């Protein structure tokens, strides 16, 4: 049976219910907004709450609360470095042990923000327009995120596909299939960015626990069934037909 553990070091988990985050880049100047309520963790000792913000190139740290308040909100303008590309954040609560060494008492899963406009911590698919992508789209599981790379050659994404419900409804089934297969085939510790996907797909029939005993064809069949269940659950075919009728 596959063993999947995100947190075996005694740290608590800052869950998605305990914080909201959004990254706005509509004006070209990235602004990060985070609100949090970690009272359920009951960390009574003196603590510091920080957020580590990173992209492919840089990482910076912002202190959310000097006094380690359990509840709060912060709006923080980021440097131009974060105006493009995928941005990731991770919230960390730090206390000190008896010898003064800073100990991580709680941390959130890494949350990723899409490169295209405004995105929030509830987004599970990170969209990354790529000017020189040779295909229309492809999936990338870099750093535990599910990144949808879409060609932006001649502004294909930003001016066309971004608004196209037809494009989105025709590819989402393939994306769900690929993510389900990735989850089924991943044997080591599950990457943080895939936790939300797992939570989404388990009720639709994804059965990870027995996946290491199944052969590849079984896994592919299961991923296909999960994708079908997702598409039926979201009524994608009806949406696509109504979209096409609107266009006509």
């Amino acid at each position, binding site marked *: 049976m596959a063993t999947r553990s995100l947190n075996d*070091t*005694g*740290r608590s988990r800052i869950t998605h219910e305990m914080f909201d985050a959004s990254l706005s880049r509509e004006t070209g100047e990235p602004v990060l907004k985070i609100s949090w309520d970690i009272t359920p963790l009951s960390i009574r000792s003196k603590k*510091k709450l*920080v957020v*580590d913000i*990173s992209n*492919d*190139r*840089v*990482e*910076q*740290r912002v202190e959310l609360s000097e006094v380690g308040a359990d509840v709060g909100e912060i709006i923080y303008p980021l*440097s*131009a*470095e974060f*105006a*493009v*590309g995928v941005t990731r954040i991770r919230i*960390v609560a*730090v206390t000190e042990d008896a010898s003064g*060494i*800073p*100990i*991580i008492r709680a941390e959130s899963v890494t949350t990723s923000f899409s490169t295209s406009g405004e995105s929030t911590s509830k987004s599970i698919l990170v969209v990354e327009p*790529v*000017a*020189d992508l040779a295909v229309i789209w492809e999936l*990338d599981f*870099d*750093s535990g995120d599910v990144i949808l790379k879409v060609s932006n050659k001649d502004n294909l994404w930003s001016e066309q596909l971004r608004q196209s419900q037809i494009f989105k409804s025709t590819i989402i089934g393939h994306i769900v299939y690929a993510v389900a297969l990735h989850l089924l085939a991943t044997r080591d510790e599950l990457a943080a960015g895939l936790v939300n996907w797992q939570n989404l797909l388990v009720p639709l029939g994804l059965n990870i626990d027995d996946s290491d005993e199944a052969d590849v064809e079984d896994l592919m069949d299961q991923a296909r069934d999960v994708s079908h269940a997702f598409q039926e659950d979201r009524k994608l075919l009806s949406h696509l037909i109504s979209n096409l009728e609107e266009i006509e």
Partner: protein
Amino acid sequence: MLLDLRVFNESGNAKFSELVASKHPDTPSRAKKLSLDDSLTTAFISSNDLLLPTTKLELGQMLWPHIGPDTLHEDKAADPSFWNWLAARLMSECLEKSKSSVGNQKRWVYTAGSRNAYRHLMSSAYLIYSNHSDDPSAAMAILCSPLGVFGEVTEQILASRSIAGSVGTELATSLYYDPETKKNKAGSGGKDAGSPRRLAAFLNQIKLTVDYKSMTVPELLDLLPEEFERFK
């Protein structure tokens, strides 16, 4: 002297990528030719103070006034077309000095993604300078090396973004850089006890419980296992 800073256009990027992938023996001089081709590039800075850099430190010092934060062209610091152009322009000088071959394509052609972006020689050198622009001496374990050489210290520190973007670079400098010789200490390029590889492994291990990013270099030096004594 460079005379100007440019970016490749789409065609320039494509031709440079093809050239590096071709592994042609004449790649460096062909790359420079591409970088000077007006139909493939657009200049955004022309200046007489763009001295040809030979080390990562000199590269950072040259670029900082032109693409640093709050400058007119700060967006170029995150623009692959600029880093590819600079790699093409400086490739022949870099390889001549280091007496090495072109090698890994990702050293010269910017490749997006957290596992690849740091491998670019020019972009990563500037990134480290940029992170320590207020005190470059804190990053000399990386900045002291020739521009065309990636090196073990650079590889191990930059491979973990959390180490490169925090006190990790300063810690590496404290351990491996010798201010008297202005070079990294003997043995710092190895993989044995106390090596940069072991340092990265140690920091990546303790980060599960210890928030080392909020610690100072002296505090971290106290925390290091005995194997690092020979570099202290």
